[in-house]
């Protein structure tokens, strides 16, 4: 089962017991999930169960060196899809992608990697 990682995250974030929720109040930063891939095609889904109105998320794929003290998509190691306005980000550049997503939405993330490592 894919869960939020307990250690691979910005230390100021709080992970719940069931490791399916994260909260933070000291600036925008990142937590990784427990599973990584390095070849072939992979797909995961996220259902937004709860997102308080002053909160926002950026979800997607991040490589090992993505800066955990910044949002996903801040540097060249991450690709994210933002809840506000549905913008996609890479290297801090936002491009239009979809409408914003909200509680109840299920997002799909596909990554296509070469078979050889």
């Amino acid at each position, binding site marked *: 089962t894919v869960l939020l990682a307990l250690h691979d995250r910005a230390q100021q974030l709080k992970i719940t017991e069931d490791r399916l929720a994260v909260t933070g109040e*000291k*600036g925008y930063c990142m937590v990784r999930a427990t599973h990584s891939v390095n070849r072939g095609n992979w797909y995961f889904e996220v259902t937004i169960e709860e997102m308080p109105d002053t909160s926002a998320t950026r979800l997607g794929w991040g490589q090992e060196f993505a800066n955990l*003290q910044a949002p996903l998509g801040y540097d060249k190691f991450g690709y994210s899809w933002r809840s506000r306005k549905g913008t996609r980000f890479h290297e801090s550049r936002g491009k239009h992608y979809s409408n914003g997503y909200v509680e109840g939405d299920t997002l799909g993330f596909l990554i296509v990697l070469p078979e050889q490592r």
Partner: protein
Amino acid sequence: ELLKFNQLKFRKKLLKFAKSAIHDWGLFAMEPIAADEMVIEYVGQMIRPVVADLRETNYESRGIGSSYLFRIDMETIIDATKCGNLARFINHSCNPNCYAKVITIESEKKIVIYSKQPIGVNEEITYDYKFPLEEDKIACLCGAQGCRGTLN
């Protein structure tokens, strides 16, 4: 320290910022200050290091010196560039009459400038910025004896 800090907040030291022989503007004592006194707290916006890095790049690209950033610890930097108090005007000296110290008051970390020696009226307040060593150097204008020649 809590007592001294509260006294400082209750009755601030008489200081003024004015043209400095060291650089641009400086902070000057308007009353005699004894040694080991709290002179002023270095006040500004508390930000995370990663935000400070972003701002430093941004300030430099706009020609605003980044010497108003003061590291409290690994999690917090005080940025006095656009909001702060008179402490932001204190110039660096390699042979200063004050020093900066991080103290903890009611679990809040604060930067306080202490006098090292008695300071006379109209004497400029200075402390050693202790900037980390960097590639591109900033010339030091303190003119003090034993000046190191650069800030970083």
